[in-house]
């Protein structure tokens, strides 16, 4: 069997830039951040999809819904992110059929970790950011590397090519126990200032804010370069 369409794109793309090695996490570019507030959480991503230095789309979805109170963002290679998302939705639907309820965020994080670790010697090149509201409306966020090593944080988690800038921005701007409006402003400012320092991500922002009663999705205006 010959190479698939994705593999042809990778071959052609890398042929144009054979002067430096193919950095797989920088092939598509991405920026993801999740933050915890008081009984709420926010997860934000950029909107660019590129093939190395060429931009293909400016409305690419990186944050996906698992159920009303649980969302996952997937950074890294876009094809692996979409495949991971499809596998996870399948596993969650089977869980819903068996258990007749939604998965808790901690359980879901263990599921994602197990799926990634299963591919230890031939991994998916994606780094998930999981955010959800657990029991008693307690927000839960976590991130993993591409092998499934979980990092549970109480404040914020970041992922993607802009992650180093995001670490810096979030460390300075984060405050504990923010309300939904303040959390929205903080996560948006952290995202926009970080992607401005990263060539491979940006072209607007998408912020999803979840409180116990509603879900707010906002598209941010950012620099289109």
């Amino acid at each position, binding site marked *: 069997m010959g190479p698939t369409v994705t593999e042809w794109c990778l071959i052609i793309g890398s042929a144009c830039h054979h002067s430096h090695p193919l950095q797989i996490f920088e092939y598509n570019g991405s920026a993801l951040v999740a933050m915890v507030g008081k009984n709420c959480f926010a997860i934000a991503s950029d909107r660019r999809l590129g093939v190395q230095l060429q931009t293909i789309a400016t409305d690419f979805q990186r944050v996906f819904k698992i159920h009303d109170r649980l969302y996952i963002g997937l950074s890294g290679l876009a094809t692996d992110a979409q495949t991971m998302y499809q596998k996870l939705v399948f596993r969650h639907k089977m869980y819903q059929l068996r258990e007749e309820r*939604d998965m808790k965020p901690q359980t879901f994080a263990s599921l994602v970790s197990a799926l990634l670790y299963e591919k230890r010697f031939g991994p998916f090149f994606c780094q998930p950011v999981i955010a959800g509201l657990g029991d008693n409306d307690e927000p839960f966020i976590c991130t993993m590397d591409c092998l499934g090593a979980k990092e549970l944080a109480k404040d914020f988690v970041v992922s993607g090519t802009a992650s180093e800038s995001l670490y810096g921005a979030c460390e300075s701007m984060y405050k504990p126990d923010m309300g939904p409006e303040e959390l929205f402003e903080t996560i948006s400012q952290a995202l926009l200032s970080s992607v401005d320092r990263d060539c491979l991500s940006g072209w607007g922002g998408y912020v999803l804010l979840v409180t116990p009663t509603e879900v707010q*999705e906002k598209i941010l205006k950012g620099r289109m370069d």
Partner: protein
Amino acid sequence: MVKMTDLPIKGGFSFDLCTRNQMLLEKGLQMPPFRKTGTTIVGLVFQDGVVLGADTRATEGPIVADKNCEKIHFMASNIYCCGAGTAADTEAVTDMVSSQLQLHRYATGRESRVVTALTLLKSHLFSYQGHVSAALILGGVDVTGPHLHTVYPHGSTDTLPFATMGSGSLAAMSVFESKYREGLTREEGIELVAEAICAGIFNDLGSGSNVDVCVITKGQTEYLRNYQLPNPRTYISSKGYSFVKGQTEVLSTKITPIQPKVETVGGDAMEE
């Protein structure tokens, strides 16, 4: 005959993306850095049991990914294991052996022994020939007494009265070699372990943040999470950043109320 897509694959690793990844490697792919626990981990035997210690920094290349991660993993109520190396490997291998020990306890009806955990770990790591990159310090107290072992990624083990592993192991070992003696009391043991971890935190770049300590004695285990916090954040401005509401420019908003899930309680049972 219709083949059903069966849901959970029967455990173990799956190699189906290896052909694609090999093709990418030939195209010049550089494998991304995995999250490692740079680390200083230590263990020592004192008069009543075992003390384990670890720092709390997780790195991804040169960046600190987690400032307060847990490196002392639960194996059984009387056995704990510190892990260094690739973070996913140490977590997965300790979780797996912990579950196997639980099943073994159900089968035998006895408290787990440290050598059981040791044999399970070393045989798993040896069968993967060092590719599962987990370097562990395993310590516990069972009916035969206190035990401390080190396990290397290729599957070799050592049984020692005091041990250090990880990138900060030389700094920590220097403290142990000068100050360790047999028959330490509990307080002396904890102090020595904390001092060794601090040596790793301050002198090794791969280790940092806080000191975790775990004290295991016959019949009792104390997990002292964040026993010492020698690196507090003192430079934060008390006011922080405050953003005015509406400062960020928004192009569009969509608000969806969350429908509360209706739980049906009661109802008639099905007939027959």
